[in-house]
């Protein structure tokens, strides 16, 4: 049986629309109907604008009709609804970061990724829930409600981009954008049976993304196949004068690159870091990842054990660097120009204290306070500077391993989706959930999570592949080679 429209891939839907069998308005209608049917249970969306989405779909159908008449080539995402994490600006739409601080904020402009999606023909669809200001690993830190994992509604979808993951898993978007500071795309992708990609730092512009930790944040896609993730990445990548950290590098045709590498029959050298398979790894996750490694071996890849000796310090270094940067970035929320303003303030200073106390939730307050402390007089060298040096060592570990291997293969998350509330009262337990994803951000590398099986209880398991800087094509090709050996990605949750 062919997939329902809302559960199809970009590749399949683009072909059907290209052949004239399907219109973007029909597709958008199917996604809207699905969203209305299931989002009461999934709660992936903070809000959506049905009229705006249908208007974008009509405009897409008109472009396609004109292009057909003129014979010009269609755009890579023409007519495809892409869900948007609620930290990415879409002009005229709400931008809340799932925070009371921005409950009534409306974006005055498009983020660069939004502009690029529009230029690629996509429909920017909905505002997807997240942990407040992208701080969390479960989407329980949202000020507006907890998103459910579509595979088990009692469990979390992961985070911070939990809404972006749940929406695609539940058929409420065809693909989506998230942001990844310490694993916020890869971990929810793993917990929801999706492909999730964090590009190399600097590959995708951050202009119009609400900043959490500027030296770590990257925007990337959630999709139902490696090929679809490659299509979205191609659309959003590239240098942007509005983000001085975006790099002047050509954007390859990722899907063509994947196909060429597949045809060449290249035998990848894959590194297995022993530090990622120790204490804390759930046995079922470990077995599924081992199964994927065996599959790579069967296809002729060379599997080598590698060492990333500073792995155990990554979470500590991350929670110093990320909180330091967040305390600086979130200083802008002062109740003056935008965002929540306390009604009880007696003077200007009191306005800051009360607006921030009322506007921010507990995890955001904890991180601002920790970040303020590690940057404060007398503590900067001991914490922040030391963490930056440890960051150098973590980065070196990876670059050293890449002298021997093309990519590194690990679990994405130590456990499958956990129950709501299970870790909510213990921030440190929640932080340790990101132990396999955080090093990638500190080192600026590209990383992808792809489905690699299910637990006996039916929960998805993700495989992480970590690539070399700016070698997204090779990374995607390694992921694609495994994806072709199984049908995990074609399974959809029973909703």
């Amino acid at each position, binding site marked *: 049986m062919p997939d329902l429209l809302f559960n199809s891939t970009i590749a399949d839907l683009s072909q059907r629309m290209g052949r004239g069998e399907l219109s973007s308005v029909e597709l958008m209608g199917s996604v809207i109907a699905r969203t209305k049917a299931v989002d009461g249970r999934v709660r992936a969306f903070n809000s959506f604008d049905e009229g705006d989405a249908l208007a974008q779909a009509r405009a897409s159908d008109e472009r396609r009709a004109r292009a057909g008449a003129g014979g010009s080539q269609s755009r890579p995402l023409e007519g495809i609804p892409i869900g948007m994490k609620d930290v990415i600006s879409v002009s005229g739409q709400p931008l809340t970061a799932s925070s009371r601080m921005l409950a009534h904020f409306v974006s005055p402009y498009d983020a660069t990724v939004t502009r690029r999606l529009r230029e690629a023909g996509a429909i920017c669809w909905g505002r997807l829930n997240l942990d407040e200001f992208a701080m969390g690993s479960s989407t329980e830190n949202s000020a507006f409600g907890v998103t459910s994992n579509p595979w088990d509604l009692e469990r979390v979808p992961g985070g911070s981009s939990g809404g972006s993951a749940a929406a695609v898993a539940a058929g409420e978007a065809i693909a989506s954008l998230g942001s990844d500071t310490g694993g916020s795309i890869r971990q929810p992708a793993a917990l929801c049976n999706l492909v999730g990609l964090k590009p190399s730092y600097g590959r995708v512009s951050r202009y119009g993304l609400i900043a959490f930790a500027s030296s770590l944040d990257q925007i990337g896609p959630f999709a139902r196949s490696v090929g679809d993730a490659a299509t979205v990445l191609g659309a959003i990548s590239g240098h942007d*004068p509005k983000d001085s950290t975006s790099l002047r590098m050509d954007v390859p045709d990722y899907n063509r690159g994947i196909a060429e590498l597949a045809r060449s029959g290249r035998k990848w050298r894959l590194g297995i870091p022993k530090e990622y398979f120790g204490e804390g790894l759930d046995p079922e996750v470990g077995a599924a990842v081992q199964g994927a490694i065996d599959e790579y071996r069967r296809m002729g890849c060379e599997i080598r054990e590698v060492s990333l000796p500073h792995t155990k*310090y990554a979470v500590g270094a991350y929670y110093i660097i990320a909180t330091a940067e967040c305390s600086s970035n979130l200083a802008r929320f002062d109740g*003056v120009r*935008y965002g929540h303003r306390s009604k009880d303030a007696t003077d*200007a*200073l009191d306005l800051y204290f009360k607006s921030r106390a009322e506007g921010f939730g507990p995890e955001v307050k904890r991180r601002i306070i920790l970040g*303020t402390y590690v940057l404060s007089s007398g503590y900067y060298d*001991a914490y922040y500077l030391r963490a930056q040096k440890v960051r150098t060592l973590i980065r070196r570990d990876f670059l050293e391993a890449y002298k021997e291997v093309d990519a590194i293969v690990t679990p994405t998350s130590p456990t499958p989706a956990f129950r709501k509330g299970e870790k909510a009262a213990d921030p440190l337990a929640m932080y340790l959930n990101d132990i396999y994803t955080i090093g990638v951000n500190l080192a*600026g590398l590209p990383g992808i999570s792809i489905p690699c099986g299910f637990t006996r209880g039916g929960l998805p398991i993700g495989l992480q592949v970590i690539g070399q800087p700016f070698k997204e094509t090779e990374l995607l090709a390694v992921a694609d080679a495994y994806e072709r050996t199984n049908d995990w990605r074609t399974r959809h949750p029973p909703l």
Partner: protein
Amino acid sequence: MPKPEDFNLDHVSNLARITLTAEEKERFASQLGDVLAYIAQLNEVNVEGIEPTAHAFPVVNVWAEDVPEAGLSVEDALRNAPERRDNMFVVPKVVE
């Protein structure tokens, strides 16, 4: 590295410009104590002679062409203001 007990929550929340309730103070002190104790393991690392990394791929001296372009209009810039008057943000009195 400083000891976790050096952490003075009142001082730091003042620097961060966030008022905390008594209940928050109690909870955060315990939770951040756990996190600081965990972070203390960075002391084990020998960082002698290691340069700090601020960005994975540092780019310096990024210049833009000095070409004027349209910015936000006054109306767009003020649209999200909590309080406004005569094309200005209204704030509590800051000078006597």
